[in-house]
């Protein structure tokens, strides 16, 4: 019973995490990665047999095998593994948060592929939008061809010079004024 509940929980966490990672916002990306790591950690937790009320200490060092066979103690190894995995994923999540906040500071937006939609709109390199606002083209559900713009975005990022002022979000200025 516990195993089934744990399995369902792991499946839910992994599914939710995958869905969140595939969405556009970067905060959703961070939350999704968090859910994914929790799911995998729980899976590790379930990999030692789940015993109710048993401590992870074995009493007789010389008779290890028999104690394990009679299931006199819970397996301590998965807990040690999870501890390591949690520390690692904690550090990496912190690193991603720093990266995302840095990109947010640089571009003034947390959207993944269209951070510089406004800037592209001013230049419109491929005339893809045909006169209309390119951010509508980029983020409408009907459109999935923003990939052709990905390369152009890379080009903008690879520039040595800072971005022109009119490319940044005007709401940033208004929020600092408040």
């Amino acid at each position, binding site marked *: 019973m516990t195993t089934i509940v744990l399995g369902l929980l792991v499946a839910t966490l992994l599914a939710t995490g995958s869905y969140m990672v595939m969405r556009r916002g970067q905060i959703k990306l961070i939350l999704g990665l968090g859910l994914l*790591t929790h799911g995998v950690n729980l899976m590790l937790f379930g990999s030692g047999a789940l015993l109710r009320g048993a401590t992870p200490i074995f009493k007789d060092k010389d008779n290890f095998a028999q104690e394990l066979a009679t299931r006199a103690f819970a397996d301590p190894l998965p807990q040690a593994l999870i501890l390591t995995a949690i520390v*690692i994923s904690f550090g990496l999540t912190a690193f991603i948060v720093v990266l995302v906040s840095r990109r947010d500071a640089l571009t003034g937006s947390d959207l993944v592929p269209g951070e510089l939609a406004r800037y592209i709109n001013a230049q419109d390199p491929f005339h893809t939008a045909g006169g209309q606002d390119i951010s509508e083209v980029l983020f409408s559900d009907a459109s999935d061809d923003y990939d052709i713009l990905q390369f152009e975005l890379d080009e903008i990022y690879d520039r040595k010079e800072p971005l022109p002022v009119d490319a940044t979000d005007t709401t940033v200025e208004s929020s600092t004024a408040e």
Partner: protein
Amino acid sequence: MLELLQSIPFQPTWLALPVALPMAAAGLLLAVARLGFRQRFRLQRWIAGVVAGIHVLLALLILAHTLAGDEGARIVYQMGSWPAPFGITLIADSFTAIMLLMTALLVVAVVPYAAGTLDHHRESMGFYPLTLLLLMGMNGAYLAGDLFNLYVFFEVLLTSSFVLLTLGGTPGQINGGIRYVVLNLMASLVFLSAAGVAYGTLGTLNMAQMAQRMDIAPDAVRILLAGLMLVAFGSKAGLFPLFFWLPASYHTPHPVVTALFGGTLTKVGVYTLFRLFPLFFPGLLVAWQPLILTIAALTMLISVLAAFVQPTIRRLISFDIISQVGFMLLALGIALDPRAPVTGFALAAGIIFIVHNMLVKTALLMGGGVAELEMGSGNLGAIGGLAAKRPYLAGLFFVAAFSLAGIPPSSGFVSKLSLLQATIGVHQYWMAAVSLLVSLLTMMVMIRLWQYIFWGEFTTGHAQWTPLRKPWASWLTLGPITVLVALSLTMGIFFRPVLHVAQKAANQVLDRTGYIAAVAPLADVPVEPEFWEPPQ
């Protein structure tokens, strides 16, 4: 030479040095970073270079000792004398030693290049300690004898590579860094779940004991684990549907970081595939041969075609890295084919290919990096004619590019030839044709690259040509490239001893019983079926 090295005694305890030494040195470097301005940089460079040099000697010593005898030997160190599977096991055979040696050599080559090209900002933000931590992670991944330590060392090397990739913090690096971190983190999670599944079904994480129990495990367990590991390490190695993190990020950092990554990181993934698949799934390696060969062919073809249309130097070489990984996977795919006339020859060819690739790819990325730094842009359309200003660099780049394509006196020729012989030996004529076609395409890509950078009218991306600031910098950059290219040529000309060593290493990788006997895991831990009986 070999006898001399073998006469030096080697304690198994010393196997911990390739992990412990760079970690201690990285800490020392962080302490040095508190010193005054000039000493800070000088001391950091020297310490990093000396530590990497010690690693080369250490790896040579391990290689000599693992080559002893007709069959070769394995060095096993059970930490704290805890018997496997309870303690931490470090194990080295000839393949491990070869990879240790190559990685240490590349770090030795990268340190002077970094001293010549890096700006003070990146140097003071800890390039050298991070490089040593990367070396520690890679060494640990080569030596690890159990799956969870492999995971931990992979994370050590990935974490240092994350910071190295974003060192400097330009918008492009942040953008590429997010993609790199997220996709690698996902692959690590797949690897971690493989470790969880392995422990839940086999009751152990020690690789030797896992190999023992894999024989009696049900098919479903084996297929699940093999699939998870193929996805996890295939993503690290840059195999066909999973390589997108690599070209999305490798063109963004400073050229010295790209050179270090391009030579080493994907090869760690390939090493792990080479180590784990023959050990755990010798049956599946035969049964899944069509799948593995298809992935190999698609990896080679798609990325070499993508390299054709890349507009900048490093984007082009990034795609070429992936295409070369396909050749290595081809070697793994045919390694256990029952039709092979000589057992292990295909894997030996794969090992030679890895060594060749680590040398030449780093040399190319270093040369391209110098061009990019001096011309102020890596955009192939905007630059050209560097041969007039830097004829020596042009010559070195030419030799490296043709070594990659596989022109005779180089290591590229011999490694591709032996791989082709192995492929034809198992009657995989389609794969032989694909690898020949990809070699031709690689040559065309390399010609295009060389022509755009060095040929024609002299033009730069910026208003004027900016040669490297320091007068000695050009020799600090050209020196390592010269050494790497010379090693590649030496390997091609004196091929017989190289093949001998690689053949011995391949036989050791394929020798499962020898590996299990060397680690000698205790047998009285109950095996999976009893372990999973519900509690009474």
